[in-house]
């Protein structure tokens, strides 16, 4: 049985998805902003696929009072290989666009779903690790906490706001672009 070829338009959509995946490398994926009465401007932890940015040192300096471990690139080994995975994903997406095989597209969508789930799981795991693994000798004792992946949380005088970055939206948009050919090239 001959596999049905995807239409040219679908192929272009998938190629576009590959571009978006590649672009996401250059934008933050996730961000947590810390607000306090004396920091109305907010302190940032900005997560890129390959680095951390923002006022990390200041956040760490403050977090040591509640006994939280330091955020640092060393503490996130993912940052050292994540960008290669993303490049790989962009490449196989581009290959899918070139092959124009529906079966390959199904496989790719599967990879996206698995990869995305792993990412969400990994971030949740990190948030849990930092929020619950507090030093017993900390000068200020607070109950362990797990900040949400997206949304607000209150810890002592800080309100944190977690949001997705442009990079994540590019990935979501890429995923949606991959779904469109399924509908467009559906067997009638």
């Amino acid at each position: 049985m001959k596999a049905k070829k995807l239409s040219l338009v679908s192929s272009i959509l998938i190629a576009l998805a590959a571009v978006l995946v590649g672009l996401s490398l250059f934008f933050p994926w996730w961000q947590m902003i810390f607000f306090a009465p004396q920091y109305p401007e907010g302190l940032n932890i900005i997560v890129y696929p390959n680095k951390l940015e923002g006022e990390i040192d200041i956040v760490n300096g403050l977090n040591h009072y509640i006994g939280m471990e330091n955020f640092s690139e060393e503490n996130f080994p993912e940052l050292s290989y994540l960008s290669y995975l993303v490049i790989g994903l962009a490449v196989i997406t581009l290959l899918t666009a070139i092959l124009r095989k529906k079966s390959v597209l199904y496989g790719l969508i599967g990879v996206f779903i698995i990869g995305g789930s792993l990412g969400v799981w990994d971030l949740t795991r990190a948030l849990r690790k930092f929020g619950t693994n507090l030093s017993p000798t900390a000068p200020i004792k607070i109950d362990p906490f797990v900040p949400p992946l997206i949304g607000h949380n209150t810890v002592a005088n800080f309100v944190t706001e977690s949001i997705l970055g442009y990079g994540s939206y590019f990935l979501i948009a890429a995923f949606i672009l991959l779904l469109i050919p399924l509908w467009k090239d559906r067997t009638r």
Partner: protein
Amino acid sequence: MKKWVPIASGLLAGFVAATISFADFSQSTNTQVASGSTKSNAEKVYVPFGEKDDYYLFASGGHSGQMFIYGVPSMRHIRTVPVFSQDSATGYGFDEHSKKMMGGYTWGDLHHPAFSETKGDYDGKYMFATDVGNSRAAAMDLETFTVKDIINVPNTSGPHCAAFVTENTEYMFLPTRFAVPIGSEYKSLDEYSDQYRGVMSAVTFDQNKEKLNIAYQVALPPWSYDLSDAGKKSSADWAVMTTYNTEEATTNLEINASQADRDYIVLFNWKELEKMVAEGQYDEVTGQKMIFPEKHKGGIYLVPVAKSPHGVDVTPDGKHFIASGKLAPSMTVFSFEKAFEAVKNQDFSGERNGIPILKYESVMEREVNPENALGPLHTQFDDKGMAYTTMFISSEIVKWDPKTGETLDRVPVQYSPGHSVAAEGDTVSPDGKWLIALNKIAKDSYLSVGPSHPESMQLIDISGKMKVIQSSPVNPEPHYAQIIKADKIKTIEVYPKDENNKLATYKQEDAKIVRNGNEVHVYGIAMRSKFIFDAKAKRPDVIEVNQGDKVFIHLTNTDFDEDITHGFAINSYNLNMEVQPGQTNTLEFTADKAGTFPLYCTNFCSALHQEMTGYFLVKPTK
């Protein structure tokens, strides 16, 4: 076409989500409550939280040796910056850099501040000030509001007639108030006219190295030089300064220096003096290039003026200079153009101490004598070129038109204004809006604090008819001040990391104590909320030395966070300093007292500031 709908909608969905998360939808809710003309006095000076003043006021601190920084129009005191005097709050005069700069002096008399200028306008980079008490000049960096260099001015005693800078800050001139013999050597006062000199220094400032330097000096006659101003635009190469005691009296100056009907304004061309120095027309004395006007002719002229004038101020257009009479109840407007013409035509009425005298009539444009206005001291200008002169004796500010001499407005102030300062009021483009009277007498103004009174600064709205709308007490004693538009000053909040600084320690694990003979160098860290002097020690916040050791504490504040300042003091060792965020600062002292001395952070830094302590242990010599 329809094929593209899903693509577009897919992309759109993503970007809409992104926009919702990232875009700032908060709307500006600033609505002008009242326009300038309908605001009450209270509304004009009220600056609510979150908003800032429009102007900085830099008021000289006089014999406090400091500079006072205020906001205008709120007249809130923001900061006191130590310049010539020690300040334990900031550790100024205690840490190595400032201690060396102060050269063993503990106080100064900061008189006339001057901003650096570009094209005759404030550029917001540096502030210069002079010390009448111990004959020094200082340069303050306006990124950090800290003094970068102080220079001792030899052959001079009391550079009161300063600081004024030329149009592009080429020079800052420091003429002296007191005449002394060259080198301040001992000479009998009977030899005053022959042996004493009123030396003026031409000081340059290297902005890259942040260093002051004396380019040359001029051995002017032994008179007192009072106030000065640099020319502007067409008169930019020139400068003027007032003199008194041209009688060359040596005692009871109150009477004896007030005898002659006329003193002089010294008019000089600094470009010409610069050229003379370049051509070698000077004598080398006490290591300085000294121009002796009677020998090295040119570039300096005298303009007769009503006796004992105080201020001389150049109009914003650079065409006129106005002398304020002090003892003569009038202001005299002189013309630069007429003076240049007279110089060109050698239209002199004679010589004094080898310096040509211009004819009063050929340079003077008009004498202005507002009725019963007594003791004119100093003049500022507004955006329309109108003049505002302080009347010390009749306690008022008089607004008048330099072009016609007409009196336009007068307002009483409480009491006895010395100088006044208008918004950028001595530049080529004054702003108008505000004038502050720097009053010498504050009685009747504030709650009593006993016999010692503060001084008073009164804010005057000059946008329409002059009106005093705010009064602010100030420590002794502002002589002159400068008002600069706030957005011209670009400060830093945190010192950047300097990897080349060998004294800095940025990583906690690098903190160490190094002994070299009887010298102990501590490379330590101050951070919320602890000291780390020796990362590997059992107690990292303890310094242990032997009695008699020379101790160097190089402390780096590794909190690179705005307004997180740490202090460092050792009990009973009479030492304190601050380290600003990111800064490295050094204390150097001899551990001459044996014993146990707690050390602690003096600047409240965090919730656990009280715990930010350690010990300084000094083992006694046996």
